[in-house]
């Protein structure tokens, strides 16, 4: 059996501590905080449904141990609309109809933010390549490309 530990971290801008079991993954930790946007689906880090940003880098929450989040800064999908306004990426996903069941959507939205931070004007091929670690079984892929392009455009105007 594994042991209990207490970890301290920043979660969506707030300082938090949590008593955890060392075998918990990040999704389980987030669930304790009522955050359900990162969802364990394939359990192997292959579908991207559990995407979470740790110190600004996207990780698979199902493979990332909670204990490793000690001292880190965690951002989840729930941080994007703090204050009530959607991010340009979220708005673009709505406008393009870039999801059906919505289960994988938080992962795609977070990865799109990462992409556009690194590459504000990605080509279609770059979009497909960057998002190839996220799966959408409803296959809203054509609409997701449209959304990423629209988001890139919208964010350029902001810059």
């Amino acid at each position, binding site marked *: *059996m594994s042991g209990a530990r207490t970890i301290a971290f920043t979660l969506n801008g707030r300082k938090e501590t949590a008593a955890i*079991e060392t*075998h918990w993954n990040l999704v389980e930790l987030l*669930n304790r905080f009522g*955050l*359900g*946007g*990162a*969802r364990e*689906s*394939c*359990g*192997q880090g*292959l*579908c991207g*449904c559990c995407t979470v940003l740790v110190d600004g880098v996207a990780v698979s929450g199902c493979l990332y141990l909670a204990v490793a989040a000690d001292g880190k800064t965690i951002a*989840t*999908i*729930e941080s*994007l*609309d703090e204050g009530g306004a*959607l991010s340009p990426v*979220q708005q673009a*996903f*709505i*406008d393009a*109809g870039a*999801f*059906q*069941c*919505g*289960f*994988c*959507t*938080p992962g795609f*939205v977070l990865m799109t933010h990462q992409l556009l931070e690194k590459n504000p004007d990605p080509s279609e091929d770059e*979009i*497909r*390549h960057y*998002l*190839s670690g*996220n*799966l*959408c*079984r*409803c*296959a*809203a*892929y*054509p*609409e*997701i490309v449209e959304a990423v392009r629209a988001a890139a455009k919208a964010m350029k105007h902001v810059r």
Partner: protein
Amino acid sequence: MNQVGRAIPRLEARTKVTGRADYVHNLRLPGMLYGKIFRSTVPHGRIVSIDVTAAREAEGVYAVVTGEDIKTIIPNPYYGPAFHDQPILALDKVRYVGEAVAVVLAADPHAAERAVQSIVAEYEELAPVFDEVEAVTSSAIVHDELKPAGTFADLKHLAGRKNTNVALDYQLRRGDVAKAMASADHVLEHIFKTQQCMHTPLEPIVALAEPGEGMLTIHSSCQTPSFVRMEIARLLGWPENRVTVKVPFLGGGFGAKVYVKAEALAAALALLARRPVKIALTMEEQFYTITKHATTFRIKSGVTKDGRIVARECDVYWNGGAYADIGPRVAQKSGFTAAGPYDIDNVRIDSYEVYTNRPPAGALRGFGIPQLVWAYESHTDLIAHEIGMDPLEFRRKNILADGRPQATGTIMQDAAIGKVLDAIAERMKWHAPFDRGTGTLRRGRGLGIGFKASISPTTSGAIVNVSADGSVVLYTNTIDMGQGSDTALAQIVAETLDIRTEDVKVVHGNTDVAPYDMGTLGSRSTFHMGNAVKRAAEEARAKLAALAAEVGLPAGTNYPFAEIFRKRYGMQAGNVIGTGTYIPSYKPTDPKTGQSDNVTPFWMIGGACAEVEIDTETGHVRVLRLVNAADCGRPLNPKVARAQLSGAAIMQLGFTMYETMELDGGQVTNASFADYKIPGFRDIPVMEAELVAATQSTGPFGAKGLGESGTFGVSPAIANAIHDAVGIRLTELPIRAEAILRALRAKEGRPLEDEE
């Protein structure tokens, strides 16, 4: 107000992009236990013993439950929509590798998982059977006796049958096939096969049962809340009103979540433990729960030299796995369309649902149609080649036109087969020359078109509630699993009441408040529930008009609803409720001839045209372009509808190119996304989706269902394109580079070394 036909975003769009949409996956209740399942390691065997002693004593374990324990609260614990053949946990026998045998309950899911590892079961192994054709004559018998559920009249004759694996033997006889076949100039016969696949909804199957005093609430990721309530009540011997089924959004369904999946187990465990119990399957476990039928389809056609199909024989074997689930319906409902969307006077169809020792098969986006279209559209191309006709022109010459009888005898109506064919051909510029490639890279084009009957007999009910301030709630047991039904149904309410769609709230999936609905399946929601919702909204509108007249408002004026209520009740009070039920007319097929002059409420039509490139050195194939078209009548929401069409086509692209459940002695050896590949971003060709201009005269505002149509033509379009490119014919799915290379080398007279 033109709400119908508006390309508005989904009503729940905001909750989905913010990660706050409600799924059972995320639901936790105080005092909840997790159930983790111990599964069979043998494909067929008698249970000799199940030793749960160590598991019961493990730290953190609340209880361990076997099939015998289930019997203490449910004496006859067998369920299923077509046959009462599936035990909640295995009893006496196991029938496939992965069958649920015992469950550990614990507050900590990790503790439950650990304890499962310490359970030991002993089996007396029996000879298994895995192949659907072998199973028809095999001495390995999966079920000692057939137990039809009694729900379907055409299964009754199977009751009590012994020593057979055939769970349904549907037959259709039309005209004189032998005579027509003898008179034909060409007779062609082929066998096509498809593989077993899994839906893999990204929200794996999950149910959470919450016991009360003589009551039970089941929160489920389920496409059929009304059925689940009825079936759980039947198992428990309770009245239906003691069972509540609640369904929030689904993280995908595709047929994996129809009828009872985890609900019966969660319910039984919750009642035994007197605590809420959550059964949340992993992605791996889904492969052991419900799958898509593998099939073998022998098809034979007689054709005149000028290109008319005069006779067709179809023998279809559906690999149903160990439990029937809805498979017998697949064999019958899809079976009667096995001869394709063609005008053929002489048809024989035999369609067999067959038990084997594989994981059970049921409905998967198309209800068997993609398997049939794969065969008959590959076959169609082979005929066209044989008689030297262009495949498009050959199809044009033979397609079923409105006013002509389908193989069941039902006269075709509102079925835009010709338009769909024209749409895909035009978009691909079928007759124009194109780059056929050079050297080792060769290009080709192919098309495929299919059709599907809808569900009947069936019933849908809906309630529209207009509140005193004029806001409106729609109550429906149609489940939004991504297809956009909440939005489409709200559009129907809004159009009827002349309000904005955004002002309609949809309460879906609650059997305590919403009326009966057969299920969110078979592309039936837009049409069946749509008609029920329209009637409910019309009744509410009529009642509002009556109320307006009662308070002296002049007829025909457009008073806000709130004002009518204020005038009537003297304050903001009251409400108006409209109800609607829709039951399409239907005539069952004759048990001997398969004939019926009213076999379906509507037809779905879907077609695809593909352009591919083959590397003749490696056999690698790239789908460059995939054009899809469908007849969905008048789309209620064109944006959502087009996305549905291309989404279905991409899903079928996976079943065509990548996905197959690899079995070794009945054991699925690739039950994870590491080894079972579904389409991702790098696999998507250039896509086009067209909804042809059409109207379903009996549909709500001219609309009909669409969720499955995009799957129909994809597989044969790709195989036909490969044939067009390099002259080889593939007859089994999935289409892999290895199969192409083998066929290419065989054609060149230098087969691969291991085939020499």
